[in-house]
């Protein structure tokens, strides 16, 4: 099985209240020097069968219709490993 990762981030112009809350907390916890924080979501998909164009197209569609809300979010799809999942960790 192969792992495909879908990263979902709020579009740059969209307010990210969670990211802002993290950013506000950082200096209170003694972490200086961070100008901005944006928080996103990462989906790790273990794909059955080969990760060919058809499979990627399906994942793309999945991301577009379900994993990401494309009205306010962008996403990227990348193939992380074609090895058996779990072997690397």
């Amino acid at each position: 099985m192969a792992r495909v990762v879908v990263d979902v981030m709020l579009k740059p112009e969209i307010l990210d209240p969670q990211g802002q809350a993290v950013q506000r907390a950082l200096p209170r916890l003694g972490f200086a020097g961070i100008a901005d924080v944006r928080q996103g979501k990462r989906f790790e998909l273990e794909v059955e069968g080969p990760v060919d164009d058809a499979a990627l197209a399906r994942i793309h569609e999945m991301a577009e219709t379900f994993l990401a809300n494309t009205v306010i979010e962008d996403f990227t799809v990348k193939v992380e490993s074609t090895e058996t999942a779990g072997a690397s960790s």
Partner: protein
Amino acid sequence: MLPSSGGRPPYPRAFDTVKHASETPDSEQPWKELGLKEDEYARIREILGRRPTGAELAMYSVMWSEHCSYKSSKVHLKQFGEKVPANDAMLVGIGENAGVVDVGQGYAVTFKVESHNHPSYIEPYQGAATGVGGIVRDILAMGARPVAVVDPLRFGAADHPDTKRVLPGVVAGIGGYGNCLGLPNIGGEVVFDSCYQGNPLVNAGCIGVMKHEDIHLAKASGAGNKVILYGARTGGDGIGGVSVLASETFDAEGNSASGTGKPAKRPAVQVGDPFQEKLLIECTLEIFAEKLVAGIQDLGGAGLSCATSELASAGSGGMRVDLDLVHLRDATLSPEEILMSESQERMCAIVEPDKVDRFLEICEKWDVIATVIGEVTEGERLEIFWHGEQIVDVPPRTVAHEGPVYQRPFARPEWQDALQADDAGKLPRPQNGEELKDQVLKLVSSPNQASKSWITDQYDRFVQGNTVLAQPEDAGMVRIDEETNLGVAMATDGNGRYAKLDPYAGAQLALAESYRNVAASGAKPLAISNCLNFGSPEDPDVMWQFAEATRGLADGCFQLGTPVTGGNVSLYNQTGDVAIHPTPVVAVLGVIDDVNRRTPIAFAEEGQLLYLLGDTKEEFGGSAWSEVIHQHLGGLPPAVDLDREKLLGEILISASRDGMIDAAHDLSDGGLVQAVVESCLRGGKGARLVVPEGLDAFTFLFSESAGRAVVAVPRSEELRFTDMCGARGLPATRIGVVDGDAVDVQGEFALSLEELRTAHEATIPGLLA
């Protein structure tokens, strides 16, 4: 010279100044892309005596949008200011952020309903959430503490797949934002009709309470006073929301119909942060308490363009603003974008110079960013600077109030006569008890008549501990003084089916129902707000509906003695050429001296007598029965008799105050049987009903004649109650008794409460959960 970010309108990076505009009168400008018409652009050039700068064009385009300028509706809305009934409760009328009414004991209440229809279709959760945020800031800007919200909602067919996308998102957004703010959601409506399929209606209302002396107005006066922008930082969200999103028709794919035909860019979605809003509320109330502001305005649609131009034009002088001082979330924003941004959770205050330090201190305490961005000037111009250069130099009134006004052509639709001639009275009726029973079950389990608790349970109704009535009661009610138990009630109603059949009567029926709901709870109706949802004003049929509905509402308010304190118009609610049903939603606010005297809907005491108040006629046009059983819409809506509504209201309020009734439920869509079933289920007790003489069982159960209510009277009060009705001339017919565990219509059928509860409560979760 296009900006690098693909999602934004094409503004030149090298910014446009007043000087540059004078030197280059013939530069092409994107007025069309910004939603302006050719003659409007020409008018701006005429006002300024030159071409507008990019920033000026941005401001005019958003402020002259339908959403902000009311350019198509203004000529009709005038009536609300002209047909004002004598009513000494009115403290602040139309034109401010929200109207204010006196509720006694030194308290004033401000309330308003607004639409967030288009954003909620595109992004249901955030659209609905920011709708709540926006109306709460409107109320806050009047000086009041927000105490409750209500949400009248309309969606497409309940079983349509897209409803399953839109409704849960909208409901979660309202709940998410409102619950985080700690505001109880005490009322509203949920209606399904396929006419709202591509265009759901998400209206949001808010009630705020203050003392009389705390009323604040949106004006900037006193030269030298500082302009302070505070709240969230300004980002690139919601740019052009009012002009591109809320003021145009979407085609079937949801794309903007004007412009080039390519898919509309959708930068207009905003994401709200309710915790930031909560800080803004507490911070602002502390600032009010220390009397630090001379004028205040919330930032909603059209953002800073709206706030600066409205504040300046309501004041005495001009205003000078330095845009470089605005705190940005995105440093690459152009001045045009900063002026048009609809970033949420922001307010703008006018503060005397010696109070600025204290103002900023309070903001700091609440972790709210605040910046002095300019000052009130002696002049009469609104001047805005960017990098030291002047980019805006306009008379503020021309932006805020002297926009275009259209006398849109309107005409009675050709199909109106045929629709009204298609009488619902001719539809086949149930012939026996068995058929009646079957249709009652169908009615109470139909999506529109079914219990909405699956939806309203997602809202916090009792937070703050002052809610005394909430859904599914006729009206929401909150206590506003814990010593005296003074309270206010609000109901919102609208019936697009009635309004489609006759917009004049439909608007009055919405008013009458809302008025009746408030009176049934025991509160005295004082004033109204409205949210007028219609199709495209460029369609003469729609414009006729709008003209008729506003005329009906203004006449009705005059007759009932409840002035319009303000409201909101939402046009272009249509998909392609098909407009929604005309949907005027009316919110009536009432006051009750002691909330312990309220009247609930529940039939809770066995042996109490049920009385039907008012006259029942054969009126089925637009009825729930005609919809559920025959999928029919035609004929005339029920006749309106506002004098009767007033009398019924007085009786309900007196009976509540003097303890003559223990329950009351207004009769509206679904008729008597719907009301009785709801009251029985609410109280967990059955009812034995007898069809009164002169009525057939079908008309008795299903007619939707207006001006009626059903009440439960303790036996000891029967004589006193019927004497009062007799003396005042209100028909009161004894129709049965609270008894048993079934709704038993004698000689016709009986339905156990268990069967009714399953039918009534399973529908909505079945469709949506």
